[in-house]
Protein backbone atom coordinates (compact mmCIF):
# COMPACT_ATOMS: atom_id res chain seq x y z
CA UNK A 1 0.00 0.00 0.00
CA UNK A 2 1.11 3.51 -0.75
CA UNK A 3 1.81 5.96 2.05
CA UNK A 4 2.63 9.64 2.15
CA UNK A 5 4.49 11.18 5.09
CA UNK A 6 4.81 14.85 5.92
CA UNK A 7 7.15 15.16 8.88
CA UNK A 8 6.50 18.83 9.67
CA UNK A 9 3.06 19.38 11.22
CA UNK A 10 3.57 23.15 11.46
CA UNK A 11 6.08 25.75 10.28
CA UNK A 12 6.49 29.51 10.51
CA UNK A 13 8.67 31.77 8.38
CA UNK A 14 9.03 35.49 7.86
CA UNK A 15 7.57 37.11 4.79
CA UNK A 16 9.97 37.14 1.80
CA UNK A 17 11.96 34.17 3.11
CA UNK A 18 12.26 30.84 1.33
CA UNK A 19 10.69 27.80 2.94
CA UNK A 20 10.86 24.09 2.11
CA UNK A 21 8.14 21.61 3.03
CA UNK A 22 9.15 17.96 3.21
CA UNK A 23 7.32 14.94 1.88
CA UNK A 24 8.28 11.31 1.47
CA UNK A 25 6.23 8.51 0.02
CA UNK A 26 6.35 4.79 -0.32
CA UNK A 27 5.24 2.84 -3.37
CA UNK A 28 6.20 -0.05 -5.57
CA UNK A 29 4.56 1.60 -8.57
CA UNK A 30 6.59 3.11 -11.36
CA UNK A 31 3.97 5.27 -13.04
CA UNK A 32 2.43 7.88 -10.80
CA UNK A 33 1.78 11.55 -10.11
CA UNK A 34 2.75 13.62 -7.11
CA UNK A 35 0.95 16.77 -6.07
CA UNK A 36 1.11 19.60 -3.61
CA UNK A 37 -2.28 21.04 -2.66
CA UNK A 38 -2.88 24.24 -0.71
CA UNK A 39 -5.83 24.85 1.60
CA UNK A 40 -5.99 28.49 2.80
CA UNK A 41 -7.91 29.17 6.01
CA UNK A 42 -11.65 28.69 5.39
CA UNK A 43 -11.08 28.46 1.66
CA UNK A 44 -11.12 25.84 -1.05
CA UNK A 45 -8.31 23.35 -1.63
CA UNK A 46 -6.39 24.13 -4.79
CA UNK A 47 -3.57 22.47 -6.69
CA UNK A 48 -0.19 24.17 -6.34
CA UNK A 49 2.03 21.97 -8.43
CA UNK A 50 2.12 18.55 -10.10
CA UNK A 51 4.99 16.20 -10.97
CA UNK A 52 4.80 13.17 -13.23
CA UNK A 53 7.08 10.40 -12.05
CA UNK A 54 8.54 9.65 -15.47
CA UNK A 55 9.73 13.24 -15.88
CA UNK A 56 13.16 13.87 -14.44
CA UNK A 57 12.88 17.65 -14.59
CA UNK A 58 11.52 19.22 -11.44
CA UNK A 59 8.22 21.03 -11.87
CA UNK A 60 8.06 24.80 -11.32
CA UNK A 61 5.12 27.18 -11.04
CA UNK A 62 6.22 30.78 -10.47
CA UNK A 63 7.50 30.96 -6.85
CA UNK A 64 6.75 27.28 -6.22
CA UNK A 65 9.13 24.50 -7.18
CA UNK A 66 9.69 20.91 -6.20
CA UNK A 67 12.71 18.77 -5.56
CA UNK A 68 11.71 15.34 -6.84
CA UNK A 69 14.10 12.55 -5.87
CA UNK A 70 12.54 9.41 -7.30
CA UNK A 71 15.06 6.93 -5.95
CA UNK A 72 14.78 8.40 -2.46
CA UNK A 73 10.98 8.73 -2.81
CA UNK A 74 11.15 12.32 -1.73
CA UNK A 75 9.06 15.23 -3.03
CA UNK A 76 9.69 18.53 -1.25
CA UNK A 77 8.05 21.87 -2.04
CA UNK A 78 10.05 25.09 -2.06
CA UNK A 79 8.28 28.43 -1.78
CA UNK A 80 10.49 31.37 -2.71
CA UNK A 81 9.86 34.98 -1.64
CA UNK A 82 7.02 33.83 0.62
CA UNK A 83 3.97 36.04 0.87
CA UNK A 84 1.26 36.44 3.51
CA UNK A 85 -1.19 34.81 1.12
CA UNK A 86 0.89 31.63 1.25
CA UNK A 87 -0.38 31.01 4.77
CA UNK A 88 -2.28 27.72 4.47
CA UNK A 89 -2.32 24.02 5.10
CA UNK A 90 -0.25 22.21 2.48
CA UNK A 91 -0.90 18.62 1.56
CA UNK A 92 1.47 16.35 -0.30
CA UNK A 93 -0.35 13.72 -2.33
CA UNK A 94 0.37 10.61 -4.39
CA UNK A 95 -1.65 9.08 -7.19
CA UNK A 96 -0.89 5.93 -9.11
CA UNK A 97 -2.02 5.94 -12.72
CA UNK A 98 -4.01 2.74 -12.41
CA UNK A 99 -7.00 3.91 -10.40
CA UNK A 100 -7.04 7.74 -10.16
CA UNK A 101 -7.21 7.62 -6.37
CA UNK A 102 -5.12 10.14 -4.45
CA UNK A 103 -3.48 9.41 -1.11
CA UNK A 104 -2.84 12.50 0.98
CA UNK A 105 -0.29 13.20 3.69
CA UNK A 106 -1.48 14.61 7.00
CA UNK A 107 -0.53 18.14 6.01
CA UNK A 108 1.84 20.91 7.07
CA UNK A 109 0.36 24.10 8.46
CA UNK A 110 2.46 26.99 7.17
CA UNK A 111 2.35 30.45 8.73
CA UNK A 112 3.92 33.39 6.91
CA UNK A 113 4.70 36.10 9.44
CA UNK A 114 4.69 39.82 8.57
Amino acid at each position, binding site marked *: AQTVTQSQPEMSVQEAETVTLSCTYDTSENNY*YLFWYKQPPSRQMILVI*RQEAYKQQNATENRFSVNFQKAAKSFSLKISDSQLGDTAMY*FCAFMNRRDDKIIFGKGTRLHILP
Partner: protein
Amino acid sequence: DVKVTQSSRYLVKRTGEKVFLECVQDMDHENMFWYRQDPGLGLRLIYFSYDVKMKEKGDIPEGYSVSREKKERFSLILESASTNQTSMYLCASSFGAPSGTSEQFFGPGTRLTVL
Protein backbone atom coordinates in the same frame (compact mmCIF):
# COMPACT_ATOMS: atom_id res chain seq x y z
CA ASP B 1 -13.07 27.36 -14.61
CA VAL B 2 -14.01 24.09 -13.02
CA LYS B 3 -16.61 24.49 -10.37
CA VAL B 4 -17.40 21.99 -7.66
CA THR B 5 -20.17 23.05 -5.33
CA GLN B 6 -21.45 21.52 -2.12
CA SER B 7 -24.97 22.04 -0.85
CA SER B 8 -24.08 23.46 2.56
CA ARG B 9 -21.03 25.10 4.16
CA TYR B 10 -22.22 24.37 7.68
CA LEU B 11 -24.66 21.74 8.91
CA VAL B 12 -25.82 20.79 12.40
CA LYS B 13 -27.69 17.54 12.90
CA ARG B 14 -28.77 15.36 15.78
CA THR B 15 -27.61 11.85 16.53
CA GLY B 16 -29.66 9.31 14.58
CA GLU B 17 -30.76 11.70 11.84
CA LYS B 18 -30.33 10.81 8.18
CA VAL B 19 -28.01 13.31 6.54
CA PHE B 20 -27.54 14.08 2.86
CA LEU B 21 -24.50 15.94 1.56
CA GLU B 22 -24.73 16.95 -2.08
CA CYS B 23 -21.93 17.70 -4.51
CA VAL B 24 -22.25 19.00 -8.05
CA GLN B 25 -19.53 19.57 -10.67
CA ASP B 26 -19.90 21.35 -13.97
CA MET B 27 -16.93 20.02 -15.96
CA ASP B 28 -18.30 16.67 -17.15
CA HIS B 29 -15.80 14.83 -14.97
CA GLU B 30 -16.09 11.06 -14.82
CA ASN B 31 -14.62 10.67 -11.36
CA MET B 32 -16.07 12.00 -8.12
CA PHE B 33 -14.83 11.55 -4.57
CA TRP B 34 -15.92 12.11 -0.99
CA TYR B 35 -13.33 12.72 1.75
CA ARG B 36 -13.48 13.62 5.37
CA GLN B 37 -10.85 15.91 6.83
CA ASP B 38 -9.93 15.78 10.51
CA PRO B 39 -7.11 17.61 12.33
CA GLY B 40 -3.95 15.54 12.38
CA LEU B 41 -5.40 12.89 10.07
CA GLY B 42 -5.37 14.71 6.74
CA LEU B 43 -7.91 13.69 4.10
CA ARG B 44 -9.34 10.20 4.15
CA LEU B 45 -11.29 8.75 1.25
CA ILE B 46 -14.81 7.60 2.08
CA TYR B 47 -16.22 6.62 -1.33
CA PHE B 48 -15.56 7.35 -4.95
CA SER B 49 -17.28 6.87 -8.27
CA TYR B 50 -15.87 6.39 -11.76
CA ASP B 51 -19.16 6.75 -13.57
CA VAL B 52 -22.89 7.09 -13.15
CA LYS B 53 -24.36 4.43 -10.85
CA MET B 54 -20.88 3.14 -10.06
CA LYS B 55 -19.35 3.38 -6.61
CA GLU B 56 -16.30 2.05 -4.85
CA LYS B 57 -15.46 1.98 -1.16
CA GLY B 58 -12.57 4.09 -0.01
CA ASP B 59 -10.59 3.71 3.19
CA ILE B 60 -13.34 4.57 5.70
CA PRO B 61 -16.77 3.69 4.22
CA GLU B 62 -18.38 2.45 7.44
CA GLY B 63 -21.47 4.46 8.38
CA TYR B 64 -21.72 6.07 4.94
CA SER B 65 -23.33 5.36 1.61
CA VAL B 66 -23.32 7.23 -1.70
CA SER B 67 -25.49 7.78 -4.73
CA ARG B 68 -24.60 8.85 -8.24
CA GLU B 69 -27.68 8.93 -10.44
CA LYS B 70 -26.36 11.68 -12.73
CA LYS B 71 -22.84 12.32 -13.92
CA GLU B 72 -22.59 15.76 -12.37
CA ARG B 73 -23.96 14.89 -8.92
CA PHE B 74 -22.52 12.72 -6.15
CA SER B 75 -24.32 12.43 -2.85
CA LEU B 76 -22.97 11.25 0.48
CA ILE B 77 -25.49 9.78 2.89
CA LEU B 78 -25.15 9.25 6.61
CA GLU B 79 -27.93 6.77 7.34
CA SER B 80 -27.91 7.41 11.09
CA ALA B 81 -25.58 10.22 12.07
CA SER B 82 -23.31 9.73 15.06
CA THR B 83 -21.13 12.16 16.98
CA ASN B 84 -17.95 10.58 15.61
CA GLN B 85 -19.04 11.69 12.15
CA THR B 86 -18.59 15.32 13.13
CA SER B 87 -16.03 16.47 10.59
CA MET B 88 -15.27 18.52 7.48
CA TYR B 89 -16.48 16.75 4.34
CA LEU B 90 -14.82 17.53 1.02
CA CYS B 91 -16.06 16.56 -2.41
CA ALA B 92 -13.74 16.39 -5.40
CA SER B 93 -13.93 15.51 -9.09
CA SER B 94 -11.51 14.70 -11.89
CA PHE B 95 -11.34 13.49 -15.44
CA GLY B 96 -10.80 9.77 -15.80
CA ALA B 97 -7.77 8.33 -17.54
CA PRO B 98 -6.57 8.69 -20.21
CA SER B 99 -8.20 12.01 -21.05
CA GLY B 100 -7.32 13.91 -17.92
CA THR B 101 -4.30 15.13 -16.06
CA SER B 102 -5.64 13.43 -12.93
CA GLU B 103 -5.83 16.63 -10.93
CA GLN B 104 -8.72 16.59 -8.51
CA PHE B 105 -10.81 19.75 -8.12
CA PHE B 106 -12.30 20.32 -4.71
CA GLY B 107 -15.50 21.84 -3.42
CA PRO B 108 -15.52 24.32 -0.52
CA GLY B 109 -16.36 21.67 2.06
CA THR B 110 -19.24 21.05 4.44
CA ARG B 111 -18.53 21.32 8.13
CA LEU B 112 -20.92 18.86 9.76
CA THR B 113 -21.59 18.86 13.48
CA VAL B 114 -23.56 15.98 14.97
CA LEU B 115 -24.98 16.70 18.43
